């Protein structure tokens, strides 16, 4: 491996991420999959970095899943996105921060379409005005939330309470990074590091002390793929894609998987549970599963946030081995306690318990 080759590519794919004042658009599914991740992003941005991040409760789904599932037409989704822009315009924000990789792909696809086919922008303006009476300015910047954490990775490292290092050996944790296909595979120039060797998560992991696992199926899709999963008959394809990745990463004995996409994080976690249930197979060291975290969860751990506040207990593959390696003390018995101390139902057959 010649690291300078990767650095040359990374230097070619750097994007401008604003310093401050973001209009944050949440994901419609991430809060179910990873209940603490978006909150962790907001806490890091507002409380730890002192940034202005605005949210509007009138913001809706981008309808991306419907679009990729062939039930929402392109003209419709353009109008929905135009409405999100009109909310940002109304609030006086020009920098859009997007939680979801699917949405990020939708926004970049639409902006590129409007750029190359200006008549479609006029149509979107007309449709939005007719439907809602709203108008909008085009944003000055579009950033995925992982772009923003990447930008401030060194500030986070400077404030970090923990590092991605195994305290028992002193060695860096081995981290598999997985980037959502819609982050840069459609428009490499919009992704930090491009499509083939994305740097957005690599930069965070290395800045916080971890090592990257570059395994043969690194670029392979997690298997979500919308129609692969949404059409029940195709789910075997989804599962087999993730399985292919697990088998490819297994020899490297990774300590965790980190993703920046809702579907990827979900399925790289969920399918480990399914494979263990069906075949009794796990892919981590000593029969363990490989914890699959979002980058906000990883950043939250590094910053010393309570793992149960981050929602790590709601993954099928529990992060307890990872917490032990990082030296994070967290009482497993408190995982499913509500704020008022009542005990919540505990999912069965969790891995790494």
């Amino acid at each position, binding site marked *: *491996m*010649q690291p300078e080759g*990767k650095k040359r590519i990374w230097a070619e794919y750097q994007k401008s991420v604003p310093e401050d004042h973001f209009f944050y658009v949440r994901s419609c599914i991430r809060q179910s999959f990873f209940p603490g991740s978006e909150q962790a992003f907001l806490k890091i941005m507002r409380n730890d970095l002192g940034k202005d991040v605005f949210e509007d409760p009138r913001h809706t789904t981008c309808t991306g899943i419907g679009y990729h599932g062939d039930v929402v037409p392109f003209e419709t989704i353009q109008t929905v996105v135009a409405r999100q822009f009109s909310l940002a315009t109304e609030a006086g924000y020009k920098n859009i921060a997007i939680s979801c990789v699917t949405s990020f792909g939708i926004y970049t696809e639409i902006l590129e379409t409007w750029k190359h086919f200006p008549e479609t922008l006029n149509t979107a303006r007309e449709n939005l005005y007719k439907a809602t009476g709203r108008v909008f300015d085009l944003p000055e910047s579009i950033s995925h939330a992982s772009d923003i954490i990447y930008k401030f990775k060194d500030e986070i490292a400077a404030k970090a309470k923990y590092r991605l290092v195994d305290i028992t050996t002193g060695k860096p944790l081995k981290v598999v990074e997985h980037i959502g296909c819609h982050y840069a595979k459609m428009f490499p120039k919009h992704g930090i590091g*491009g*499509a*083939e060797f994305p740097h957005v998560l690599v930069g965070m992991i290395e800045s916080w002390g971890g090592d990257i696992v570059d*395994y*043969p199926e690194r670029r392979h899709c997690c298997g979500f793929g919308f129609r692969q999963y949404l059409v029940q008959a195709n789910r075997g394809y989804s599962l087999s894609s993730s399985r292919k990745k697990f088998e490819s990463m297994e020899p490297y004995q990774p300590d965790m998987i980190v993703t920046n996409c809702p579907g990827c994080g979900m399925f790289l976690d969920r399918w480990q549970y399914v494979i263990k249930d069906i075949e009794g197979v796990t892919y981590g060291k000593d029969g363990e599963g490989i914890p699959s975290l979002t980058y906000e969860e990883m950043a939250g751990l590094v910053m010393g946030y309570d793992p149960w506040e981050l929602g790590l207990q709601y993954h099928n593959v529990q992060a307890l081995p990872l917490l032990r390696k990082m030296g994070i003390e967290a009482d497993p018995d408190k995982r499913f306690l509500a704020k008022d101390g009542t005990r919540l139902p505990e999912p069965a057959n969790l891995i790494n318990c």
Partner: protein
Amino acid sequence: MTKHVVIAGGGVAGIEAAGALADLGQTVTIIEKETAAGGHVKRWHALFPDRRPAEEVKKYLSHRLKNKNITVINNTSVNRIRHHGHSLTVETSAGDNINADAVIVATGFDLFDAARKEEYGYGIYNNVITAPELEDMFNNDALVTRDGRKPSRIGFVHCVGSRDEKVCNHYCSKVCCVTAVKQAIEVREKLPDCEVFCFYMDMRMFGPYYEELYREAQEVHNINFIRGKVSEASNTINGRIAVKVEDTLAGRPLKMELDVLVLMTGMEMSRSGARLAETSGLTTGKNRFLSVTDNHIHSNRSNMHGVFYAGACTAPMNITDTISHARAAVMETVNYLSKL
């Protein structure tokens, strides 16, 4: 009366044009940007289709330069050509202005930078190399992986930077297919136990005895030709290269591990030629190579009076065609000079 011709570029085309002009009694100055004339063939070990030693052609070119009418200026490039009355002035990167009665542009081609096809990991993965780097291995009799192992499986990727819309090169570089066939045979001869795979889009065996070489590769040397492009290359835990290919004839995806992956990099308009075209007002085509005034009957003429083209500055060419094209450029030049 003896005339003076300046030739921009001292590769195969430039040398052949210089030799032919000198034989006809003209004085010639070759301006070559490298430390020595000779062009890309300097690096080659053997040539298709007969696999003669490249040294023979190199010796021929070297001998061509020994004519007393030829002067070679190395480490210098032509910055600009401009008209000066009925003659031409050639401005060089050394700051000299050289008067000429005619100019032949023979700036050749640059090899496509394989790192631009990021999916193959050239410059990142140790055993992803280019065709010229394989020639270096043949020259050094060192056909081994970066860590000194004898390869047991080698793959060739055709059309790297050619016929590829993503890198804005729609054209075929012509020589890569037959070069891959030649190199694949050489690998099999040097390493009889090594499996060899060629991943191609179409096999373009356009020249005499090329098709025969392709047949020999399959029938005699058991080289595997798979119709499909490599979509990506990755490193394995033991330092091999994992490739994914769609076998379009079998209609199924294919994944395999290789010890060495050879990228058949195509030709692009040379940077020095492109710069010269821009400064001098020479027209270029959609493929960015120099445009000739007529593709069929005036393939050496430029849009500038007294300036002629030779070789791969106009389009990808093999050595045979380059030499023929250079000789035709000389005929056009001599005709032009006779009318001055």
